[in-house]
């Protein structure tokens, strides 16, 4: 134990507050509980088929709900300008995906193409 403490001291990692560490541990538990929510119990139970069908719409809705505000909003407000590098980065990435769809590298290409449009506009023109 002393050796561990000495090691943490040497790296400057002895500053954690017990209360904060408890919070972090409980947050990890929240991660497990939410991600496992409907398969924690062993009781026999299957999702009704109408719900199974509905579930196919959940992932794409969740991704769109996360991604589009990241592209089209600034500080919680819808953007008022077309001089925003994120629009063109995302459009270029999406266009690349649909051009190359089906190939294994389509998603990686989306990132590379999108960033190569985004970074010059963002750093060069301050968009």
């Amino acid at each position, binding site marked *: 134990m002393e050796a561990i403490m000495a090691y*943490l001291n040497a790296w*400057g*990692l*002895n*500053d*954690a507050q017990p209360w*904060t*560490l*408890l*919070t*972090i*541990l*409980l*947050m*990890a538990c*929240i*991660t*497990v509980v*939410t*991600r*496992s*929510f*409907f*398969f*924690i119990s*062993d009781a026999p139970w299957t*999702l009704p088929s*109408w*719900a*199974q*069908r*509905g579930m196919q*719409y*959940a*992932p*794409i809705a*969740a*991704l*769109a*709900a996360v*991604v589009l505000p990241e*592209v*089209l909003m600034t500080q*919680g407000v*819808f953007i008022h300008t077309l001089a925003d590098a994120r629009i063109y*980065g*995302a459009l270029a*990435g*999406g266009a690349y*995906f649909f051009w190359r*769809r089906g190939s294994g*590298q*389509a*998603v990686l290409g*989306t*990132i590379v193409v*999108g*960033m190569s449009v*985004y*970074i010059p506009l963002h750093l060069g023109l301050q968009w």
Partner: protein
Amino acid sequence: MLMVAPGIAAWGLMTGVAMATSGMHTSEVLAMAILVFAGSSQLAAIPLIGAGAPLWVILATAFCVNLRFVVFSAHLRGYLMHLPRMQRLMVGYFVADLTYVLFTKRYPVPGATEAERIDQMAYLAGNATINWLSWTVCSVLGVVLANYIPPAWGLGFAGVLALTGILCSLATSRMRVLSAILGALVAIMGYALPLKLNILLAIAVSVVLCMLLESYAAPTAQEA
């Protein structure tokens, strides 16, 4: 999964940078980066921890931001119930957004035979491992390198682009495109809602409207 790992990595890096510059102690930030494994709930909890919010408020916030995973878990149940409970909880911990999306895309229905189930679990384990490694290693790197990576570079945008690619790959039918448009509209209009509840509302509205439209458009096909 390897195809999107660079995006996850850049995103993890920027989350690490954001956490390190939040005023939390380095050891706390590292513990969070390694243990919590839920980027959006981490970023939502940090200002609350800094402000000395009560524990239950922080945990309730983390829970609400993670509510989309509750929806995913209902979907994954059929794939996982053959495992013992402890293994299911392990799977739950490691299955984040991208792993869930890619897994259900590759395997639209749960395995019917032992061999199919083993095949699915192997894919899930490999996918989750790559995701966990690239996220965790890079967010720890982000914490360590925070002083050298200005947020102004906008490297976090690579994570948005990774999600954009996955989003496009899911757009395989007109109804799904509609689901995406509805989700985006509701999330933007509801952005002012607290606790990231706009995301949950967007999922709920999209799923319900798409199902209503589906049963309105093709009632006979569904009764059959």
